[in-house]
């Protein structure tokens, strides 16, 4: 099947006016302006098939929101090719936008003073959803996201978690095949985060909605994304599965032990990554020493209450990836897997 979203060599440069400070600076600014050029997108390429759930991560200023804006049709890039479901987003804005859903994490698209259900109905009219389909879609969404008690509450009275669930439903009322989520779990409490993640997972696996998720929350990633695209400074650093990402950056695994006594621990084939009182974290390369072997050695020499082996958290992986490419001397666009 042909890919649903195709992005090829997108380039976008912003010109930011430099303002001199103070009153004299403002007056000077009226006469002559100096501009700084920022390359937000420096040749981004990827393609996404229908039904994929892709995580799009990068440090602040990497170009994540710029990519989402271009894919939504809001922003016109300087050069490069982009097609979503066969359309160029910014050329056919109205047709394109009718088939996508967008959720911006910190800003709601619902009407502040209206009860939630009235916002939904207004959106139904905006997106021209036939009544029968609206009824079934909203019924299902309200059930899945547990929105029944919130329907008559004005949006301004909702908590952040409640608002996010409503925003998710609102973005899907017109049953778009493609969904862009920009930081959907930011600021949410633990319960809401889980609910949102469950919902997104269901959308992707159960209903085949293509989802692009940008986030800083690495737990979101590990929980949801089969595929991860890492971008920094406007370029794609890595594009593949989570396992590929780990493998590319480091094979390292971590052994965490809870010691009975507060004592020094060392091993020739492991490095101490972290220490907090009785809890110690050792990093090792599984190709050099197997986990079983390392465990045997440590427990032989020290009294250990508890232990477990895990992968380094994704934050560490990603941070290492950024650091590795920091001296940004043309890091080639890399693909981790086919």
């Amino acid at each position, binding site marked *: 099947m042909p890919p649903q979203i195709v992005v090829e060599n997108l380039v976008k440069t912003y010109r930011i006016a430099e303002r001199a400070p103070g009153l004299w600076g403002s007056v000077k600014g009226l006469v002559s302006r100096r501009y700084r050029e920022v390359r937000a997108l420096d040749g981004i390429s990827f393609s996404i098939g229908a039904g994929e759930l892709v995580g799009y991560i990068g440090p602040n200023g990497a170009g994540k929101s710029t990519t989402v*804006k271009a894919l939504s*049709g*809001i922003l016109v890039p300087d050069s490069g090719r982009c097609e979503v479901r066969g359309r160029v987003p910014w050329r056919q*804005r*109205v*047709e394109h*936008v009718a088939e996508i859903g967008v959720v*911006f994490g910190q*800003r709601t698209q619902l009407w502040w003073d209206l009860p939630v259900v*009235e916002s939904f109905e207004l959106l139904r009219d905006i997106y021209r959803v036939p009544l029968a389909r609206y009824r079934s879609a909203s019924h299902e969404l309200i059930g899945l996201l547990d929105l029944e008690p919130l329907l008559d509450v004005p949006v301004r009275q909702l908590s952040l978690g409640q608002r996010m669930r409503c925003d998710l439903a609102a973005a899907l009322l017109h049953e778009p095949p493609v969904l862009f989520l920009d930081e959907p779990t930011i600021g949410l409490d633990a319960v809401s985060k889980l609910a949102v993640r469950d919902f997104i997972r269901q959308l992707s696996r159960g209903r085949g909605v293509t989802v692009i998720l940008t986030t800083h929350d690495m737990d979101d990633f590990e929980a949801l994304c089969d595929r991860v695209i890492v971008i920094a400074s406007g370029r794609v650093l890595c594009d593949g599965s989570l396992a590929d990402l780990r493998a590319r950056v480091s094979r390292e695994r971590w052994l965490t032990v809870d010691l009975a006594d507060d004592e020094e621990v060392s091993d020739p084939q492991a490095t101490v990554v972290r220490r907090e009182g009785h809890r110690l974290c050792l990093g090792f390369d599984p190709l050099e020493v197997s986990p079983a072997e390392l465990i045997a050695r440590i427990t032989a020499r020290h009294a250990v209450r508890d232990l477990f082996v895990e992968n380094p958290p994704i934050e560490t992986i990603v941070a290492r990836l950024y650091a590795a490419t920091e001296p940004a001397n043309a890091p080639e666009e890399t693909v981790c897997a086919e």
Partner: protein
Amino acid sequence: MNELGLYFRYIGVSIRGQLQYRVSFVLYALGHGLITFVEFLGILALFHRFGQLRGWTLPETAVFYGIANMTMAISDAFARGFDVFGNMVKAGDFDRLLVRPRSTVVQLMGQELTLRRVGRFAQGAAVLAWGLHSLHLAWSLATAILLIDAVAGGVCLLTGIWVLQATSAFWTTESLEVWNAFTYGGAFMSQYPVTIYRPWFRQFFTFVIPLACVNYFPVLAILHREDPLGSPEAFQWLAPLAGVAFLMVALQVWKFGVRRYRSTGS
């Protein structure tokens, strides 16, 4: 639902929101009416002292005043979304409108219909009625058509100025106040027949921002008065179309502004 239907849907939502505070709304509308009416009290005092204004009498001026205020009230109520657009661009909320499969103009116009402007409308209408009555002008179909003609043209023109103001927000959100000279200032100067002003002022407001075309000329026809400037009656009837043309041009400039916004990013 087509664009017009959507617009009415939006307006219904806005009106219901404002009417939630019924008592407060009525008092506020009254207050707004009074604060705009004090202008006419000033005009009354001036005519009481001076008797006439370059050949124009108080009742005639009342007609100009009435139409200017009615036009301003309607435009101010309708174009509010454009008036506050600077804040929307600053907050980055315009993207929200672009992500919807609808015209940005309809969405902005539908943002709010500021009902309390009815205060200004009511006092303008009252002054107009008094003026026509004092001139012993009978109500006729022609008068009614001219009134609607003038007010409709004026609403188009003022809305067009607000559209231009909003468009300028794409370039800078700092100095949007400059446009107030043409919107509120324009309404202010339309209270009087445009012949009382200096020629260069009058010409600007006839040919560049045609406020005279949507007020002065049609009112001449209503008053059955010879134009000191010598315009034919046919022109007086058709002049408000200049307001419509102005709005069309403004909307094209808006489209250009949106295109530029989308190319340069926020």
